[in-house]
């Protein structure tokens, strides 16, 4: 089977863009990705894309051109972007396409998400009594983890502080002001132990990626970034997921653990080989837990890692170099592809002030409700 390469990456800046729909932000990102790859829209053999709250991706053929391209809409919650990437990856691997597009975009109203119980197969009382909030789930999973493995609130603060420092260096980020750790720790408590600055917010943005077979990339004369592995896994028994009225006493691994192992196996690389990583950081604790779930450290070691700055720029494994969801916000459909975009930029060596010197390998992990994770491993 052919190797798969990423040859173009585009982004519409994250945050809030009044007067521009989510779909338009997606189109903006696709045009930038096509230009970056040096190809035209009619060259694309297949497209995958999606949003959570901003409409069907395939509508963008109205703007991009009616080429008849097969365009598959993806809806996989927070992992929508990861799933679109997987579709494009698999099409090229299978020899069905030489050039494929993955696109994700979104535009959410302000404030926390307000899901309806019936959409999740849950009884009405669960929502009526105030148990159905994503922020609660994050806090409950994190509290248990902190208790089990000795993670302190200060470590949560350090994650957020790093995110805002990095975000200030990324042109596509939303939050561009560093925030000191005292302000983070003393900001309004939202769901104990998580304060306001430790949570990301729903936002807007769009990302497009152009993928190519290795042969096509050579024909085009571009320097390819190899997509060594793209995996997605849904939850195994005993995982701790959002909106669970009950949990099994016998606990199991998370979908992230399963997807990560599969991705490392497929890539022939291990956690120690990775130079830069983007890990789902819906809130500070998620980044902490995902460091271990993805195999980069043992449970509990994050306390030392963060105090020593190992995940900061210049550390042994910089994590969320563009500020992650905390600094970029979370437009659900685009978020997972933003991580891959950032990794492409890092491997191309054009990340400017946030460049990880000499980065050759990059890892991204997106996690979404109701329990699925997508991993992409890049190598140049």
């Amino acid at each position: 089977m052919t190797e798969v390469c990423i040859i173009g990456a585009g982004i519409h800046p994250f945050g809030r863009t009044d007067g521009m729909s989510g779909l338009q932000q997606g189109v903006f990102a696709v045009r930038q990705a096509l230009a970056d790859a040096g190809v035209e829209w009619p060259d694309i053999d297949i497209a995958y894309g999606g949003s959570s709250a901003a409409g069907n991706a395939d509508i963008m053929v109205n703007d991009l051109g009616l080429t008849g391209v097969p365009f598959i809409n993806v809806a996989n919650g927070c992992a929508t972007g990861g799933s679109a990437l997987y579709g494009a990856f698999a099409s090229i691997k299978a020899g069905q396409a030489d050039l494929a597009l993955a696109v994700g975009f979104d535009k959410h109203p302000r404030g926390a998400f307000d899901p309806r119980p019936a959409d999740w197969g849950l009884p009405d009382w669960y929502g009526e009594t105030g148990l159905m909030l994503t922020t609660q789930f994050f806090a409950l999973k994190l509290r248990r983890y902190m208790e089990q493995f000795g993670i302190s609130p200060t470590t949560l603060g350090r994650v957020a502080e790093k995110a805002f420092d990095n975000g200030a260096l990324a042109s596509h980020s939303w939050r561009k002001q560093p925030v000191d750790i005292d302000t983070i720790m003393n900001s309004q408590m939202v769901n104990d132990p998580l304060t306001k600055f430790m949570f990301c917010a729903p936002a807007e943005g769009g990302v497009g990626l152009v993928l190519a077979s290795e042969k096509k990339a050579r024909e085009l004369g571009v320097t390819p970034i190899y997509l060594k592995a793209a995996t997605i896994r849904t939850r195994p028994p005993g995982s701790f997921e959002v909106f669970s009225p009950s949990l099994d006493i016998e606990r199991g691994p998370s979908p992230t653990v399963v997807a990560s192992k599969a991705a490392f196996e497929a890539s022939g690389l291990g956690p120690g080989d990775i130079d830069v990583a983007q890990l789902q950081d819906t809130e500070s604790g998620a980044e902490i837990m995902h460091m271990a779930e993805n195999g980069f450290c043992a449970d509990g070691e994050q306390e030392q890692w963060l105090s020593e700055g190992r995940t900061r720029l210049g550390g042994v494994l910089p994590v969320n170099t563009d500020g992650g969801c905390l600094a970029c916000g979370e437009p659900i459909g685009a978020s997972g592809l933003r991580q891959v975009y950032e990794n492409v930029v890092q491997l191309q060596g054009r990340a400017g002030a946030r460049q990880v010197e000499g980065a050759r390998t990059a890892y991204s992990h997106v996690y979404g409700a109701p329990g699925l994770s997508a991993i992409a491993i890049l190598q140049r």
Partner: protein
Amino acid sequence: MAETLVDIADHLLTRGPDPALIGGRDRTTGRIVFPCPADAERFEAVELPREGRIWSWTVQRFRPKSPPYTGPESFEPYAIAYVELPGATIVESRLSGFSFDDLKVGLPCKLVAEVFAGKRSYAFAPNDSIGGDGA
């Protein structure tokens, strides 16, 4: 007082002075879940243990959006937890009667019927008959 009210949902907890949550036991695997799923061929209704320990907790500090939330407009923060019911399952619940500052993993608690939005619902309250934090 809760005994005379309509339940917030059918088949959620038993009636009487000492109610229990109603879970579902998978007839094949023995796995217990809460609430009891409607599929009676697969799940047999069982009363869950009334006493357990806090497995994890948080405090809800902002008012959830309505719908679906039907609590009062004037919002007071409330504590919620996963409570491990030994030998059965871990259930999510509002907490009642705990001071937020005292909350920690391992605290013993017991099921109580609680009025919520004019209906009979459930919560877990401190269980003073058991000492130690069991953590």
